[in-house]
């Protein structure tokens, strides 16, 4: 379709709105970046907006001071990749099963699944469960509890349902097994929504620290986020009970504050996951329904 003059005016208006949105959305991240490169004590004074006032790498140094962080990074990557792949695959599979309107257990399974979004048994029973499954302090405690997500299933199912029904039907007539239909037809057709779900799962897995803390506190299994939570928690305490450092000395000290650490940590934790999306984005194209039909 060729764009008319009216279209161009509308485009211009939308672009204008989007530019404002971009500024509002980008600025806080930019500000966080700036603060992460600014001297921590200086940052307390405020007034840092677009550019660091006192450059330093010290905030990052205090995060990367040990090799623990690199190991934790690898653990984070591993758990994120594995969780994402498995969760997307199984959520999609279940969504496909539930998309069969006449499936005899559709209702039961759906209710059974949906309720998991709202019930919460509490931490202690959960701990006991994982312990009896032998998951405590094991890598698998990151993976197994999040193999399927009810929310994701619903979202994928809705997407499948909004696809032309004839596609799935035609595949069935060919006598293909359900698993094969899922792998060879549904997955390619659902790429946009699977990419969305993948993003959700990946971000969730990447950002979580609480499960490390409670279920896998072992140092070897520590994740990036958990390591950084540790650094922040300890920085809150600095100087409170250590009389050694409370003197009115004139030493200009190199120091960190929870705020600056948090800024640096946000950047370190966000950048890897931020670069994921542009890769997923390429699946966000309208599927060419015609070609699937053949």
């Amino acid at each position, binding site marked *: 379709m060729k*764009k008319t003059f*009216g279209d161009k005016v*509308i*485009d211009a208006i*939308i*672009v204008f709105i*989007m530019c404002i*949105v*971009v500024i509002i*959305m*980008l600025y*806080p*991240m930019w*500000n*966080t970046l700036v603060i992460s490169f600014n001297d921590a004590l200086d940052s307390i004074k*405020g007034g840092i907006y677009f550019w660091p006032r006192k450059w330093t790498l010290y905030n990052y140094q205090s995060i990367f001071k040990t090799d623990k962080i690199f190991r934790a990074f690898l653990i984070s990557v591993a758990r994120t990749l594995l969780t994402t792949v498995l969760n997307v695959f199984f959520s999609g599979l279940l969504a496909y*099963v539930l998309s*069969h309107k*006449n499936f*005899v*257990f*559709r*209702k039961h*399974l759906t*209710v*059974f*699944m949906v*309720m998991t*979004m*709202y*019930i*919460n*048994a*509490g931490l202690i*029973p*959960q701990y*006991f*469960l994982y312990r009896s499954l032998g998951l405590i302090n094991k890598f698998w405690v990151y993976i*197994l*509890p999040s193999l399927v997500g009810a929310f994701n299933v619903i*979202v994928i199912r*809705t*997407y499948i349902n*909004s696809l032309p029904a004839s596609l799935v039907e035609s595949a069935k007539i060919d006598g293909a097994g*359900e*698993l094969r239909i899922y792998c060879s037809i549904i997955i390619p057709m659902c790429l*946009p*929504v699977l*990419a*969305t779900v993948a*993003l959700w799962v990946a*971000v969730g897995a990447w950002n979580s620290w609480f499960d490390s803390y409670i279920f896998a506190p072992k140092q070897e299994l520590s994740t990036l986020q958990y390591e950084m939570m540790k650094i922040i928690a300890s920085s809150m305490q600095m100087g409170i009970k250590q009389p050694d450092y409370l003197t009115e000395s004139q030493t200009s000290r190199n120091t960190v504050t929870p705020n600056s650490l*948090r*800024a640096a940590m946000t950047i370190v934790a966000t950048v890897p996951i*931020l670069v994921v999306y542009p890769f997923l*984005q390429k699946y*966000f194209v*309208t*599927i060419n*329904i015609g070609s699937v039909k053949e």
Partner: protein
Amino acid sequence: MATSKTVSKKEFWKLARKQKSLILISIPFFIYFFIFNYLPLWGLTLAFQNYKPYHKFWEQEWVGLLHFKNLFTDPDFYRVMRNTIGMSLINLALGFITAIIFALLLNELTGNLYHFKRVVQTISYMPHFLSWIIVCGLVSNILSMDDGILNEILLRSGLIKEKIHFLGKPEYFWWIVGFTNVWKSMGWNSIIYLAAITSIDPCLYEAAAIDGYGRFGRMWHVTLPGIKSTIIVLLIMNAGWILNAGFEMQYILGSNGLVLDVSETIDIFVLKRGFGRSGGFSFGTAAGMFKTVVSTIILLLCNKIAALLDEERLV
């Protein structure tokens, strides 16, 4: 339920035989949900005890409905419920509308604006990655009387004569939470709509164009109906979370005497009442049970309404 009743036993088995592979695939899922989500439900018995972690199960003191009584008879309970539902509704309404509009507008960026679209999209979900404590810091910066940009703008443009103490006025608090939520999650939430839009058959747009619909007409008559089922399903699911109005933001920005009356949500209430006290775990569990029951009722209600309107349903 309706379908299984209408289907006779014989037909059921006939269908079931045909769906052997589907059933086979379902079984592991049943088992999985049972183990990971339902098995720990024995923990709900905590709500009826004065649970002490270091006692064995049979050594616990059973208190019946005491914790529920404490919950419902607390004069503060109704206040925090009001706050929770109030903020939740604002979040729900603002969140949905803005994310959908944003997705629709983004979708309009086609042709040579495609790359611009990708950039906007990538940037729009950045706030999602900022922790609440950073976000709250920014919010109070912006709203500050001292050097806050909003007060500056309002003052210079002559809209106000005196600086407003935004964070100290109860009447603003819910809206501050609402708009901050919008800002933080609009881009992120719009991703799902953009994905849904991809399932729309391009022929429909062409047909609409032939029918003489303009840009907004097509948006209204093609795109929006195309993602309607997604919207409704998400609405139903979110309605179930009506008692989750958030926690951190209210806690960080609202824990001062000036706005405490409107800022406390049920989660904060439970934390305060349960924290470190005898039966703290139990009280929390009781509150969790209450939330689950409310969620389920609302969920079923919304689902019913959707069914009556003949829309996409959750269950």
